[in-house]
């Protein structure tokens, strides 16, 4: 379990005040949780607190009983919490697709055969096998996004924190991410999915809504999306089908559709 308790964060070198103002929630193993919020609401900052890239000003983030405040545990915490950044170029560091996927594994002390096998599996899983020797910069945006995900998946983290991982994917591949979330949660991994697409929040069991550094909702997505006016006020949309359905209901024709 990742347990976030009264988490506060203040941007360094900024005159503005809190980025996160006292958040508490839990992400359990085997659970999928979506996180929505307008630009500047603190989503990415929150994500970066979950594996100790950022440390809270007060409150705590505890991953499987390890606090991110404990420097000796950070290495282990980062093995437990796999981060997929919004822009894949922020995390790609090597010169070929194959090396990129092997990069994290190299520090785990695996024997060669196992490493090769795991890299092969990851490349196949994310349809990258034919690009092994290609430099990542030669891939398309969507392919680089799959590469970033493959490099995290290969490490078998206990939790995934994914910051808009579908943003550059074509609609078909986006559906595969939905399936990925289902498979990984079934394998008892925890998922935090940051998204701008309300339709993607429906893939998850819970939806957290962040506004101005505070947690406004922590409910099943269907429940949250009944509050269309409140969400619009915060600059967020409900799924298009939800909005159209609500409109039909308001017209009094629900029985017709």
């Amino acid at each position, binding site marked *: 379990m990742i347990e976030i308790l009264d988490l506060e964060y203040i*941007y360094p*070198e*900024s005159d*503005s005040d809190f980025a996160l103002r006292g958040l508490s929630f839990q992400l359990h193993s085997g659970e999928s949780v979506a996180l929505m*919020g*307008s*630009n*500047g609401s603190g989503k*990415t900052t929150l994500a970066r607190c979950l594996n100790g890239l950022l440390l809270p000003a007060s409150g705590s983030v505890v991953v499987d009983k390890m606090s991110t405040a404990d420097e000796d545990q950070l290495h282990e915490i980062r093995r437990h919490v796999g981060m997929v950044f*919004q*822009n894949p*170029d922020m995390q790609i560091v090597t010169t070929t697709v194959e090396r990129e996927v092997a990069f994290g594994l190299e520090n785990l002390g695996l024997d060669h055969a196992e490493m090769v096998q795991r890299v092969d599996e990851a490349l196949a899983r994310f349809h990258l096998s034919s690009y092994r*020797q*290609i*430099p990542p910069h*030669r*891939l*398309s*945006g*969507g*392919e680089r996004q*799959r590469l970033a995900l493959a490099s995290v998946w290969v490490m078998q983290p206990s939790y995934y924190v994914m910051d*808009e991982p579908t*943003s*550059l*994917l*074509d*609609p*078909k*591949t*986006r559906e595969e991410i939905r399936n990925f979330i289902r498979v990984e949660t079934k394998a008892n991994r925890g998922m935090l999915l940051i998204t*701008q697409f309300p*339709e993607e929040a429906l893939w998850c069991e819970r939806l957290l809504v962040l506004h101005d550094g505070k947690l406004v909702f922590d409910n099943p997505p269907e429940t949250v999306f009944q509050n269309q006016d409140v969400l619009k006020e915060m*600059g*967020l*949309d409900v*799924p*298009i*089908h939800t*909005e*159209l359905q609500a*409109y*039909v209901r308001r*017209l009094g*024709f629900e029985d*017709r*559709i």
Partner: protein
Amino acid sequence: MKIEFKEVSFEYRSSLLPTHQALEQISFQIGPGEIVAIVGPSGSGKTTLLQHLNGLLSPTSGQILIDDQDLHTQPKLIQQIRRRIGVAFQFPEIQLFEETVFEDVAFGPKNLGEDEAKVEQSVRSALKLVRLNYNQYEDRSPFHLSGGEQRRVALAGILAMNPDVLVLDEPTVGLDRASSDCVMQVIQTFRASGKTVIFVSHNMDLVATLADRILVLENGKITFDGSRPDLFSNNKILVRAALTHPQVVSWMQSLAEKGLPVRTDVYSIPDAKAEMDRVLRSDL
């Protein structure tokens, strides 16, 4: 401005890697006042195509004509064209680098040799287009803005050059509704003044809302060039090119399947509501 591709092919070549044919025999013409969306699976050549539009890449064979002049036979033309075709690649905000928003947006106009007063005027009108208040933002550091504000500053930097054509690669990725709406408005305003917009997106709702015309790229080839209704009623191409229906369309289709006589070539939420009003109320 008229842009014409004549049988443009492009190969990525390198001594270490197998040659990759990224574009094959691409031909099209885009005139002023058009909004053209380019869609297709990841890796189909969309970004490579955009990189040809301002001479960042040159074709292995074929011609690119800008107002009937061949872009690659006259080196000087490429310099001119880069002023007139503004390009924002994916996540353009990572290229913000100046200390203040003003300096960042002013970078292009200053390079064009505009005098101080003219530069300020260009910056003011560009920031206005992306709906950032000049007085509130001019002195702020671009690095302390939200992702949505940064994207808008990056776009303002391009608009400040007053280009004739705007080329955008996934312009709304990562943006919330307010910033997305702002980008959509920029695109529509731009076209309304008789200029051209070419954008790449995987977001079919965005494509359906904005595009006058859609090009589908598959494996480096154009496999469709036509209107929204023609594309979104063509299931064969949608499936083959890893595309989906816009959500408004899939909603209307589900009503049609239930026997309601609604049109399915409806692309925006207000239009969908109006169409449901019309049909549900009329056969009371």
